C-alpha cells in the first residue's frame, strides 16, 4: 500500500508537471500566429482490484490535446480567400480610380484645351502663333494618352510579374506542406505543433487562392486549389507555373505541372489574390486600355477626317494631324496571332459609332470562320470580295492570308491605340482651317458634302428643294449645273469633273455651298472641329469622345465602390471566423494564469502525498525497530 501511495503521489506530481509544462508552452506561444492552445488530457490510472474492491491508483497524462475546430478553420480559410480577393481588387481599382481622378484627368483636360485652342484659331485662322498653339495642344493630348497608356502597360507587366511571384510562393508553400507531411509521418503521436504549421501554411495559401483540404486515410492531407486542382497530395506536390498565352503570348496563363505533363488551368475560379491579379490584368486593365484607345481613335480619326476635307494655309488639302489608325501597320497589329502563324489579317476601322471595346476571337475550323464577340455571341463569318474581307462592329477585317485549320486569332480593335497616338504633323501651316463646305451654307440639318475628287468645278452649291425630296447643284450665281434629282442621292455625283458625295442628313431648303478655292482667312473647318467636342461620335451616337472617359472613370468607380463594400463584408466575415477560431484555439493569459495556479497547487498537493507516503513508510520502519 505504502509503496502504491508513493507512486500515486509521484504520478500526480508528474501529471501536474506535464500540465504546468503545457501551460508554460501555451503562455510562451501566446503571440505565436497560428498556434492552437494545447491542453493535457488527464486520466485516472487503471484500478487496482484487491479484496473485492477496486482501488484507484492515481492519475496519468493520457494525451496532449490540440484545441481545434475543423469547421471554424475551414470557414476562416474560405473567408480569408474571399477577403484577400476583395481587398486586392479594391486596392487595384482604387489605384486606377485615383489615377482617373488625378493624373489621367489631364487627358480630357488636354482635349478641352485643344478645342479651346481651335476656338482661338478660328478667330484668326492665318495666325501662325495660334496655329502653333493648336498643334502644341494636340501634342499634349497625344502625350497624355501615351503617358497613361504607359502606366497601364507597366501595371500590366507588373501584374504579370506579381503573378509569377505569387505562383512561386504557392509552389514553396506546396513544398513546405510536403515537408510538414513527411515530418508528420515520422511522429508517432498527434503532431500538434506540426498541424499548427500545416494550418498556417494553408491559411497563407488561401490568401492566394481558394483552397480545400481533405484528410487522407494515412492521416495526411490533400490540398486542392481553385476548382479542383491538386496542389499537394500527401507526400507529393505538383508545381504551378505560367505559360505564354495563346494567341497573345504576353498574357501568361496559369498551368499545373503534373509529372511530365503541363496542364493549363482556367483563370476562373482561382479566386483569392491570384484570381484578383488575373482579373485586374485581363479585365480591368484591358477595359481601361480599350476605352482610352477608343478615345484616341475617335479623337484622331474624326480630326484627321476633317483635315482631309479642307485646305491648309498653303492651299493644299489638309494632312493628318495624328497617327492614321487605318495604316496597314496598325491595322495588322490589331490582329494578335501566335508567333508561328502564317495568317495575315488587317483590321480597319470604318465606323467609329459601332466601335466596341474588348477582344474578338476569330476561329477557323478548316471550312468556316467563327467569330466570338466580346459579349460572347458567336457568329459565322465568310470573307468575301477582293481582297476578301468581312465587316463586324464598324471594323473591316481583311483576310490577306487565311488562318490554318483550328487556329485562333484575337482581334483587339482599340487595345494599343492610346499608346500609338502621335502627332504626325509638324508644320502648323498644315492645319486645314478652311472646309470645302463654306460658312455661306444655309444648313438646318446635318447635311454634308464630301469631295471625292476635285475637278474643274471649283465653286458650286448643293440646294435642296423646299420639301427636301430633291436636290440640285448650281453655281454661286444660281445657274444649274446638275439638274434636280431625288434626295438622298444614290451615289457619287459628278459636278463638271468634281466628284462629290452628299449625305442624307440635309434638311429641306438647305444650301451647301462648296468652294474649292483656297482661302487663308476661312475658318469653316475649325468650326467643324469645334463641333467635335460635343458631337456624339461614339457608341451609336450616345457618347462624345469625352463621354467615353467619363464612362470609364465612372465604371471603374462603380467597380471600386462595390469591391470596397465587398471587402467590408468579407472583413466582417473574416473577423467573425477568426474570432471563432480564436475562441477555440487561442490562448487566454488569465485562463493560463488560473491553470498555472491550479496545477501548482496540484503539484504541491501531490508532492505532499509523496511526503505522506514517506512518513508512513518511516513510521512503519520505526515500528519494526
Amino acid at each position, binding site marked *: 500500500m505504502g509503496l502504491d501511495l508513493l507512486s500515486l503521489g509521484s504520478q500526480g506530481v508528474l501529471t501536474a508537471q506535464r500540465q504546468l509544462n503545457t501551460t508554460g508552452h501555451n503562455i510562451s506561444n501566446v503571440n*505565436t500566429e497560428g498556434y492552437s492552445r494545447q491542453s493535457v488530457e488527464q486520466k485516472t490510472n487503471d484500478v487496482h482490484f484487491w479484496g473485492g474492491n477496486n482501488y484507484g491508483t492515481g492519475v496519468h497524462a493520457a494525451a496532449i490535446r490540440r484545441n481545434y475546430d475543423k469547421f471554424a478553420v475551414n470557414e476562416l480559410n474560405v473567408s480569408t480567400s474571399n477577403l484577400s480577393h476583395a481587398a486586392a481588387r479594391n486596392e487595384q481599382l482604387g489605384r486606377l480610380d485615383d489615377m482617373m481622378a488625378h493624373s489621367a484627368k489631364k487627358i480630357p483636360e488636354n482635349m478641352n484645351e485643344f478645342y479651346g485652342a481651335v*476656338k482661338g484659331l478660328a478667330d484668326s485662322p492665318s495666325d501662325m502663333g495660334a496655329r502653333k498653339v493648336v498643334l502644341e495642344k494636340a501634342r499634349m493630348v497625344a502625350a497624355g494618352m501615351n503617358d497613361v497608356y504607359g502606366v497601364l502597360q507597366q501595371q500590366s507587366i507588373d501584374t504579370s510579374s506579381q503573378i509569377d511571384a505569387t505562383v512561386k510562393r504557392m509552389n514553396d508553400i506546396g513544398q513546405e506542406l510536403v515537408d510538414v507531411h513527411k515530418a508528420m509521418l515520422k511522429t508517432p503521436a498527434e503532431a500538434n505543433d506540426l498541424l499548427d504549421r500545416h494550418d498556417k501554411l494553408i491559411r497563407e495559401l488561401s490568401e492566394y487562392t481558394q483552397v480545400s483540404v481533405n484528410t487522407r486515410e494515412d492521416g495526411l492531407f490533400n490540398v486542392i486549389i481553385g476548382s479542383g486542382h491538386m496542389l499537394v497530395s500527401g507526400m507529393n506536390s505538383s508545381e504551378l507555373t505560367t505559360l505564354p498565352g495563346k494567341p497573345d503570348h504576353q498574357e501568361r496563363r496559369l498551368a499545373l505541372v503534373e509529372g511530365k505533363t503541363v496542364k493549363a488551368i482556367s483563370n476562373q475560379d482561382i479566386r483569392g489574390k491570384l484570381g484578383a491579379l488575373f482579373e485586374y490584368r485581363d479585365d480591368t486593365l484591358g477595359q481601361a486600355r480599350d476605352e482610352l484607345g477608343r478615345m484616341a481613335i475617335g479623337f484622331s480619326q474624326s480630326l484627321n477626317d476633317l483635315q482631309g476635307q479642307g485646305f491648309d494655309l498653303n492651299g493644299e488639302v489638309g494632312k493628318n494631324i495624328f497617327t492614321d489608325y487605318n495604316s496597314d501597320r496598325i491595322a495588322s497589329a490589331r490582329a494578335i496571332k501566335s508567333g508561328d502563324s502564317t495568317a495575315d489579317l488587317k483590321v480597319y476601322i470604318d465606323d467609329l459609332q459601332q466601335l466596341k471595346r474588348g477582344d474578338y476571337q476569330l476561329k477557323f475550323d478548316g471550312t468556316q470562320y467563327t467569330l466570338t464577340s466580346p459579349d460572347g455571341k458567336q457568329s459565322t463569318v465568310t470573307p468575301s470580295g477582293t481582297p476578301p474581307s468581312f465587316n463586324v462592329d464598324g471594323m473591316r477585317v481583311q483576310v490577306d492570308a487565311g488562318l490554318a485549320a483550328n487556329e485562333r486569332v484575337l482581334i483587339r480593335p482599340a487595345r494599343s491605340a492610346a499608346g500609338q497616338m502621335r502627332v504626325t504633323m509638324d508644320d502648323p501651316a498644315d492645319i486645314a482651317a478652311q472646309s470645302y463646305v463654306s*460658312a455661306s451654307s444655309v444648313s438646318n440639318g446635318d447635311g454634308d458634302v464630301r469631295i471625292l475628287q476635285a475637278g474643274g468645278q471649283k465653286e458650286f452649291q448643293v440646294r435642296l428643294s423646299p420639301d427636301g425630296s430633291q436636290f440640285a447643284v448650281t453655281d454661286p450665281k444660281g445657274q444649274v449645273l446638275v439638274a434636280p434629282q431625288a434626295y438622298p442621292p444614290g451615289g457619287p455625283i459628278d459636278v463638271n469633273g468634281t466628284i462629290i458625295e452628299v449625305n442624307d442628313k440635309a434638311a429641306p431648303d438647305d444650301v451647301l455651298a462648296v468652294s474649292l478655292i483656297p482661302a487663308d482667312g476661312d475658318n469653316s473647318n475649325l468650326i467643324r472641329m469645334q463641333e467635335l467636342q460635343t458631337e456624339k461620335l461614339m457608341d451609336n451616337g450616345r457618347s462624345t469622345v469625352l463621354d467615353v472617359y467619363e464612362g470609364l472613370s465612372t465604371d471603374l468607380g462603380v467597380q*471600386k*465602390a462595390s469591391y470596397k463594400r465587398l471587402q467590408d463584408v468579407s472583413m466582417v466575415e473574416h473577423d467573425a471566423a477568426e474570432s471563432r477560431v480564436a475562441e477555440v*484555439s487561442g490562448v487566454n493569459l*488569465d485562463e493560463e*494564469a488560473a491553470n498555472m495556479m491550479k496545477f501548482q497547487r496540484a503539484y504541491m498537493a501531490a508532492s505532499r502525498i509523496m511526503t505522506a507516503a514517506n512518513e508512513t513508510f518511516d513510521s512503519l520502519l520505526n515500528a519494526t525497530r
Partner: protein
Amino acid sequence: MISRIASFHNYQSVSNDIMRQNVKVQDNQEQMATGKRVITSGDDPVSSIYIQNFRQQDEQIDQFIDSITLARNRQTREEIAIDESEQIMDGAKRKVMAMINGSLSVEDRTAHRQDLQGMFDNFMDLVNTKDESGNFLFSGTQTSTQPFYRDSQGNVRYAGDSYFRTAQVAPAVEVPTSDPGDKLFMEIDNPFGDYQPEYDLEDGSLLLMAKAENTNDADTSNYSVSFDVNANGDTTYSLMQDGTEVSAGLYDPQNGVEWNTLKMTFEGEMKPGDTINLERQDSFNIFDSFKKGAALSYADIDDASATAELHQVTEQFAAAFKHLNKARSEVGTRLTTLDRQESMHKDFKLVLNRSLGTMEDLDYTQAAIDMNEDMLALQASQQAFAKTKDLSLFNYI
C-alpha cells in the same frame, strides 16, 4: 457557455479596430481639407458622372465665353470701319450735291472735286483696313489678299472672295464675324431699280429718271427713251430696244412709260429731244460712283446731262449710305446676339455651379459632426484599450 477571449486575438482585433477608426478620421480630414465630398469616382459613382458632366459643360461654357469675347472684338472693329465709311458716303453725297449747285464757278467745282478725290482715297484706305494681325478686314476669307485695288483705268477691282468667317458661340449658334467686301461695297441695290440711266439732255433740261424696273430678269436688252413734243404741244415718248423702236405715244407723267415688263418713271421738266439711255444694272459699286462723280465734275456747269448724272451719283451715295447703315445694324444685331448668348452662358454657369456644389461640395457642418463622432470613437477605444491592457491575472501571482 462563456466564450473564451484569446489574448493574442484580443490585441489584434483592438489594433484592427483602432486602425479602421484611424482611416475614417483620415478620410474625414481629407474631405475637410479639399472641401470635396467626392474625390474619386469610387467615393460616389452616381454623383461622379454628374460631376464630370457638369465640369465638362462648365469648361465648354468658359470656352464659348472666350469665343464670344473674340467675336465681339472682331465685330466692334468691323462696326467702326463701316461707321466710318458711312460718314464718308454722307460727305461724298454732300460734296456731289454741292457740285450740282449752278451758282458755282469752275474753280469751286475743282475744289469740290479735290475734296471728293480725297474722300475716295480715305475710302480706299478704309476698305483695305487690316486687323491687329495684319489680315484684311474686307477680303472675305482671302485675308492675306488686299481686297480692293485700282487698275490702270482707275476702276476698282475686288480680289477677295464672297465668303465670310463665323464663330461658334453656343452649341448650336454660329455668328458671322466678318463680311466680304464685295457684298458691302460692290453689290449695292441700284436706287434706280434695274437700270442705270445715261443722259443725253438738251440744254436747260431738268429731266431726271426716278425709277426703271423690269420684272423679267432674263431681259438684258438696252433701252433708250426719248421725248418730243407733237403738234398739239403734248409730250410724246419713243422707246427703243437695242436701237429699234418698240413703243411710242403720248407721255403720261402719272404712269411714266410702260412696255411689257418694263416700267419707267421720270421727274423734272423735260425738253424735246431729251434722251435717256438705259443699261441693265441691278446693283452698283461705290467706287464707280466716286469715279463718276470726279469725272463729271470736269463737265461744264451748264451741261444738263452731266448735272443729271451728278444727281444720279448723289442718289447712289445715298443708297450706299443706307446699304452700309443696314450692314452696320446687322453687325449691331450680331453684337446683341453675342451679349445675349454671353449672359445666357453666365446664367447657366451659375446654375451649373450651384448643382455642382450640391453634388460635390462638402457639407462642413455634417463633416465636422462626422469627424467629431469618429474622433470620439477613436479616443474611446484607445482609452478603453489603455485601461484594460494592464488587466492580467499575472499581476496577482
